[in-house]
């Protein structure tokens, strides 16, 4: 019995200290919610009918976008239908909310021109394996950056894509990794959108895949631009737009010929002919195959509206990929090939899939909290929380005397366990400690202390009834444990129901309520029980005043019946 108690006591202390040390060494710290460190939060609610699967794709896309802003600990949670994006500590809050709140819209635009903006020379290193580096021999300008250009050696000549078509029963669109280089800043062209300026600003420095890009040149731009003079930096579907590509290129693309909804919801990344390709089906009828083929035809014939022969796949204003069209008649499905890595191919497939069944979001609630306000709240909560704990302990020392040290020890073990759990979950699952969580923990001190009060009161009753302390400790724990278990079960029940059925801050509160209740039960059984029982056997508790009931008084009660206790 004694050995078991010591084992349990040492065990729980080892676990508490061990997890604390492990978390400290790993550098896990509780991450703070945006109401404690400042930041931005937005709740997105899908509008109209949507595909539940598309929603999870949408969440993935939002995650990627958030990652691209470089937020330290973004928290993206799907709660039923809604998606909550919390960006604690984000610097440019307004921009962050704008980026998150964008509709995930996939557009297909014919590419008029593409190239590397010369104010960003580093982006000329074209990503993607399997490309050879061709020195800028044909370069006519002095821009150093244009001298190295990655070119896909596997780009087949037009028409050869049909070979894939027969092999895979789908027509291939081959990704052109490099097309042409524009030596012009995109902004200058936009500020003065007149055709001549735009044309002059475009200077083709090298055409590496000559047979594909025959028609590119000044003339194309000047002739196309007047037809649709609206040039937009934003991704408006019916206007010509300058768009940034994921590959670091800038694309000058015409009005969208189709959107993601021409495709079926079956895009998949596959291995074909030794490389990663993306296959996607086309919807039947004029809205699917018809629209796509009209656009493909334009580009295949390299008409003025699509001189490069490329179709840019644009997600939210970013060109994901700009494959060259290899045939004018697609039937049933489309294959996109190029120097994809596996992740690039999967990414593109995901985006096409999402484009087929887009989810439109509205933002029913958005919030930005300034960093100073968050810090103030945190300080206030911490200081008043500590003062509150100190007051409770003072009261307990006054009331239970030496037993109060057991409470102190129990609270310390409980605090270590909670801190470890919160830090670990912060690091692993992106849990963030919000103000409601901190308040929940402070309030739970009351519940935790109650378990001790229930136990100690029972202990006192037993001792007053004339039992030895040693005997009462074991017995009173058994009865107190039943009470604690019943009461804590109800708290846990409440936490679980709230966690599953509510959203937002109520949910965060439910988590911390559940956590502190669990810690309470663990500490009561593994720490308080052995400590009190062991203390009851030691000399420390059996002399002088223990928890306010003096041993003397109990002795009186035993020796002189009836009247003794009244003294």
């Amino acid at each position, binding site marked *: 019995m004694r050995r078991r108690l010591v084992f349990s006591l040492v065990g729980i202390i080892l676990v508490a200290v061990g997890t604390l040390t492990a978390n400290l060494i790993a550098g896990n710290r509780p991450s703070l919610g945006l*109401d404690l460190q400042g930041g931005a939060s937005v709740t997105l609610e899908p509008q109209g009918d949507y595909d539940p699967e598309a929603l999870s794709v949408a969440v993935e896309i939002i995650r990627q976008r958030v990652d691209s802003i470089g937020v330290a600990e973004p928290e993206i949670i799907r709660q039923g239908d809604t998606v909550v994006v919390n960006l604690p500590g984000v610097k*440019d*809050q*307004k921009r962050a909310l704008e980026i998150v709140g964008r509709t995930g819209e996939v557009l297909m635009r014919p590419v008029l021109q593409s190239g590397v903006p010369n104010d960003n020379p580093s982006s000329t290193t074209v990503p993607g394996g399997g490309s050879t580096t061709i020195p800028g021999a044909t370069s006519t300008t002095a821009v150093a950056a244009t001298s190295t250009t990655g070119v896909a050696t596997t780009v087949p000549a037009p028409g050869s894509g049909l070979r894939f078509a027969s092999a895979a029963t789908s027509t291939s669109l081959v990704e052109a990794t490099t097309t042409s280089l524009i030596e012009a800043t995109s902004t200058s062209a936009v500020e003065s959108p007149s055709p001549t300026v735009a044309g002059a600003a475009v200077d083709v420095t090298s055409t590496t895949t000559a047979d594909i890009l025959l028609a590119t040149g000044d003339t194309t731009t000047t002739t196309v631009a007047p037809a649709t003079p609206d040039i937009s930096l934003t991704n408006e579907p019916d206007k010509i737009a300058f768009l940034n590509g994921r590959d670091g290129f800038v694309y000058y693309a015409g009005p969208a010929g189709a959107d993601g909804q021409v495709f079926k919801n079956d895009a998949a990344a596959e291995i074909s002919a030794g490389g990663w390709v993306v296959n996607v089906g086309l919807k039947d009828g004029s809205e699917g195959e018809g629209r796509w083929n009209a656009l493909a035809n334009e580009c295949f014939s390299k008409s003025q509206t699509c001189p490069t022969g490329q179709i840019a796949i644009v997600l939210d204003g970013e060109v994901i990929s700009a494959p060259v069209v290899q045939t004018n008649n697609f039937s049933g499905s489309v294959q996109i090939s190029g120097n994809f890595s596996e992740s690039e191919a999967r990414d593109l497939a995901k985006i096409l899939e999402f484009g087929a069944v887009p989810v439109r979001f*509205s933002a*029913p*609630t*958005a*919030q*930005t909290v*300034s*960093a*100073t*306000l968050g810090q103030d709240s945190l300080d*206030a*909560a911490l*200081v*008043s*929380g500590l003062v*509150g704990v100190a*007051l*409770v302990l003072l*009261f307990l020392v006054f*009331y239970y005397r030496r037993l109060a040290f057991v409470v102190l020890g129990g609270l310390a073990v409980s605090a270590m366990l909670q801190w470890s759990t919160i830090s670990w979950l912060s690091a692993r699952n992106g849990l963030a400690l919000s*103000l*409601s969580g901190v*308040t*929940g923990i*402070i*309030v739970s001190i*009351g*519940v935790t202390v*109650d378990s001790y009060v*229930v136990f100690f*009161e029972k202990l006192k*009753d037993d001792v*007053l*009834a*004339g*039992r030895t302390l040693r005997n009462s400790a074991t017995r009173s724990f058994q*009865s107190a444990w039943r*009470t604690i278990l*019943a009461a804590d079960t*109800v*708290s846990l029940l409440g936490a679980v*129901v*709230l966690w599953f*059925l*509510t*959203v*937002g801050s*109520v949910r965060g509160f439910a988590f911390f*309520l559940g956590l502190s209740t669990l810690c309470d039960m663990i500490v009561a059984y593994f720490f308080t029980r052995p400590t009190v029982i062991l203390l009851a056997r030691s000399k420390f508790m059996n002399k002088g005043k223990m928890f*306010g*009931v003096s041993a003397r008084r109990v002795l009186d*009660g*035993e020796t002189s*019946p*009836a009247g003794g206790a*009244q003294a």
Partner: protein
Amino acid sequence: MSGRWRRLYNGETTVDFSGRRWWGFGVSIALLVITVVSLLFQGLNLGIDFKGGVAWEAPATKELTIDSAREVLESNGVETANAKIQTLGSGDGERIRIQVGEQTPEVRDAVQGDLAAKSGVDSLEVSVSNVSSSWGRSITEKAIRALLVFFLLVSLYIAWRFEWKMAIAAIAAMVHDVAISVGIYSLLGFEVTPATVIAFLTILGFSLYDTIVVFDKVKDNADRYAAQRVSYADITNVSMNQVLMRSLNTSLAAVLPVLSLLVLGAGVFGAVALQEFALALFVGLLTGAYSSIFIATPLLTIMKEREPKYRPLVGQMSLGTDMSRLATTGAPVSRRSARATVRDDDGGVERPEPELVGSAAERAAAVLTHPPRPRKKRKR
């Protein structure tokens, strides 16, 4: 330590809770009537999270006061008639908080910029929150649905762990607590925010926790007196006196941190979010502690007294010394002496100070399950 305190401390009080049950009911009914009237005529002061709208919060300076904030709103074409502008906190941390109805994103950003300019800080230092009314509605609906599910599960649990009459009494006490807390919020015009809702949920948990601890004791005692003719009012009286100190202790331990949040966190530091929590919690903790003793247990007594086992004993009350004897020895006093005590009590205002009864042997017999082993006979 005076005698009264000592008895309280040692759990030897003999307060007649059951006999005064109508006091508790009276107070609660009065409070509930006030709640209903206040809700009908004044309603609740709902925050923007439930109504929808925009709120800004900016550091207050000499240039940015309540009046100049109103000017900012007007210059941006925002209706100021229903705008709520208040100053929060104190000293260096003073802030201006503005709440208005739903606005377009352009107006929202423009006001944020203007406030920042007036206050002389970066626009990132101006906090904005924007909530659509549909969202607030859906949050409320979800919370209410969660609450109903919680009630159902808790009733099932209590019915299984204790008995269904206790479940009904516990739920009634919970509803009572929430109703009165809502009433106080309505009466004093405090703003209801999501934090308030969370605090109310905490209150529910706390009230229930308190009630269950009392019921656990009642059940223990009901089992203990099962073989004797003890009225249910006596059982609950004894139980409540036994857990009185625990209830007071626990409530104090729970209220102290909340009081610290309210006084230090909200009062000294001026953290509004904390104030919202602490206020609701403070109100709720008090009603929670009150209801487990004055609502839940008397309700249970009334329901249990209708059972055949306890019906003949209604009116039999062990008061004062008798209650003390009942608690320590586990044996009820005779019916006649019980009547006599009641008659005595009716006459005098002050009951005679209950004497502590029972020798150590008697007390031991009360808690020991077996009688002491008889002394062995000496061998011949």
